[in-house]
């Protein structure tokens, strides 16, 4: 029997450590495995017996790429447990902060991690030698996102200003005004990014995914809403555990999440876009249409275009939030500790991030559960490899390996989150 094995021992341009293994038997993919060998750090165990107020700072350290997502899911879960609602300008500031992280993280992925696959470079520094202006545009756009996070959060990575109930200090209207001007320039760059990525050459591959995302009646989803799918799922965040289940496979230090009724699902830009297309701001919706995206996109290689559309959405939304901002009377809502269980699901750049906490009377954490987007996407990534690689088997090993890596990078996997990095092993016999 002809067997061919393709391996990538350490997957580059993803955040974290993982490897890939593809086993081909007689021209068919027999096995596709994404192994995450990021060393485990045991956050859920470390959170026990910490104060509820410590969760946003501690969980941020799960991921240096999307710390805001961890802070947001944790504060929402805590507020849910403690019976507190944060609305008005504080809610708007949280959305603004999240816009900053989307712009920063998505632009990093689009320009520095993913575009080099389409243009034939090893990385963005190599790409800059031929396309200096493009890379500089990307860096400037990314910087605009970081400037939002730095102003509102105190610094770009592991911001210090988020707390359960709101913020430690809120900006004045005057603090934010220069940022709006800056973002208008970024919005132009984001629009150009949509047009640029739309012109890439995409492999023609589609699957009928189960898309899952947070969904809000009036807004493109960030912080709150119900959990919905394109197969009729429509549940409160508190019911997550009744519909999703995690399991542990030997080849990975990240847990796999699946629907309880069996089957993988896909989180992130493609899912959010398909499930919330009509809630995009008009500018982003028009740009998507002009880029040739229908209301649903099932080609994961095109996720780079959807990511660019979401950067445009976030720039436009951030400008609107700043223009409507009125300084709140207090930087945070007062909170009294009590026993309870709380749930939070928010949209990290790479997909829905779920937190659940059980608190004791004094506000100490008795139990914590965190389900990052990349562990939820793991099964879908492996299915993409199994389904799509077959059409690429005529490629020589190195080109096939590269194509498989690109297939994983479609997901912008954050393996530090899912625990972390990629090796590709292709076994062709």
């Amino acid at each position, binding site marked *: 029997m002809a067997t061919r094995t393709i391996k990538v021992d350490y997957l580059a341009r993803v955040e974290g450590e993982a490897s890939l293994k593809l086993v081909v038997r007689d021209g068919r993919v027999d096995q596709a495995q994404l192994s995450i060998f990021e060393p485990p750090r*045991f956050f859920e165990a470390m959170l026990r017996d910490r104060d509820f107020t410590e969760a946003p700072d501690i969980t941020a350290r799960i991921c240096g790429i999307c710390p805001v997502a961890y802070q947001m899911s944790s504060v929402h879960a805590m507020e849910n447990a403690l019976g507190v609602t944060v609305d008005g300008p504080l809610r708007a500031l949280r959305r603004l902060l999240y816009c900053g992280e989307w712009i920063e993280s998505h632009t990093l992925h689009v320009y520095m991690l993913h575009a080099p696959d389409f243009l034939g470079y090893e990385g963005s520094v*190599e790409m800059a030698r031929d396309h200096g202006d493009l890379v500089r545009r990307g860096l400037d756009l990314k910087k605009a996102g970081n400037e939002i996070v730095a102003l509102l959060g105190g610094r770009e990575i592991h911001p210090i200003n988020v707390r359960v109930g709101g913020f430690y200090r809120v900006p004045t209207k005057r603090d934010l005004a220069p940022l709006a001007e800056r973002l208008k320039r970024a919005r132009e760059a984001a629009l150009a990014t949509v047009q640029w990525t739309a012109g890439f050459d995409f492999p023609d591959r589609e699957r009928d995914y189960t898309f899952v995302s947070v969904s809000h009646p009036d807004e493109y989803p960030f912080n709150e809403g119900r959990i919905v799918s394109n197969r009729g799922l429509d549940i409160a965040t508190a019911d997550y555990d009744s519909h999703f289940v995690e*399991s542990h496979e030997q080849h990975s230090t990240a847990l796999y999440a699946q629907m309880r009724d069996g089957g993988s699902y896909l989180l992130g830009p493609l899912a959010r876009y398909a499930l919330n297309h009509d809630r995009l701001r008009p500018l982003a919706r028009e740009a998507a249409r002009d880029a040739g995206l229908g209301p649903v996109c099932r080609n994961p290689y095109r996720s780079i275009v959807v990511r660019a559309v979401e950067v445009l959405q976030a720039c436009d939304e951030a400008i609107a939030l700043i223009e409507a901002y009125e300084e709140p009377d207090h930087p945070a809502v007062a909170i009294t500790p009590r026993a309870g269980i709380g749930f939070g699901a928010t949209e990290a750049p790479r997909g829905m991030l779920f937190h659940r906490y059980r608190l004791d009377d004094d506000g100490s954490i008795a139990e914590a559960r965190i389900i990052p987007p990349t562990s939820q996407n793991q099964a879908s990534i492996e299915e993409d490899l199994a389904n799509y690689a077959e059409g690429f088997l005529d490629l020589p090993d190195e080109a096939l390996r590269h194509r498989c890596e690109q297939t994983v990078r479609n997901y912008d996997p954050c393996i530090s989150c899912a625990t972390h990095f990629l090796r590709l092993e292709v076994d062709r016999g």
Partner: protein
Amino acid sequence: MAKAPRKPKLAVWKFASCDGCQLSLLDCEDELLAVAGAVDIAYFPEATRAKVGGPYDLSLVEGSVTTPHDAERIQEVRRHSKTLVTIGACATAGGIQALRNAADVEDYLAVVYARPEYIKTLATSTPIADHVPVDFELRGCPISKRQLIEVLSAFLAGRKPVTPAHSVCMECKLRGNVCVMVAHGTPCLGPATHAGCGAICPSYDRGCYGCFGPKETPNTEALSAGLSALGLEKRDIRRLYSTFNAGAAPFRDEAKRHGD
């Protein structure tokens, strides 16, 4: 014409960490292309697939040692590196994951994983300097990108980086902040914490939580006395010292002094 001098080879290595400190390099949006022009980025998998073999003139190491495999790998990294600089609290103090050092790792495994037998881990999370000689340690959770650029510039110029080891209090004074502890009674680790962040937390009306780790010769005992005078209980004080630099000796010992 004389041949241009060879550019120094830079490698970036990851151990147990969140990726945030190496991301700081990509977050230097204004300097990144200049850095890429001054050094040969020989190994930086988060940024590029390209790989150039060692030896490396400068290795930046992020993360702590938490697995048997990583304990061996760091030896190899050291062998291939002329200068080795550790970046961030995981690499310099073991990171937040060093909380396991005072706990039962079997219990940690059972809390997180359904099949603990699939996981290979050490009972401790330790800084890189516990395993190999380190040429320079850059503090912070995360590091400051301004200080990272200083480390790279100093390396290129062949001088020692300037990263003062005094306390966050000095930075607060330089910024003209009102002391949050004296004026507002907010618990603050600033007096015992290594400078470098620019006193961000007090500038945002919150107390420092020590993410740059202990300063040189900190008087943690006096600070803890001040914290209890503000009404903090033993447990609160223990928690305050037990975060991202929980493995750094002065913080670890002070937390232990406030044990049950």
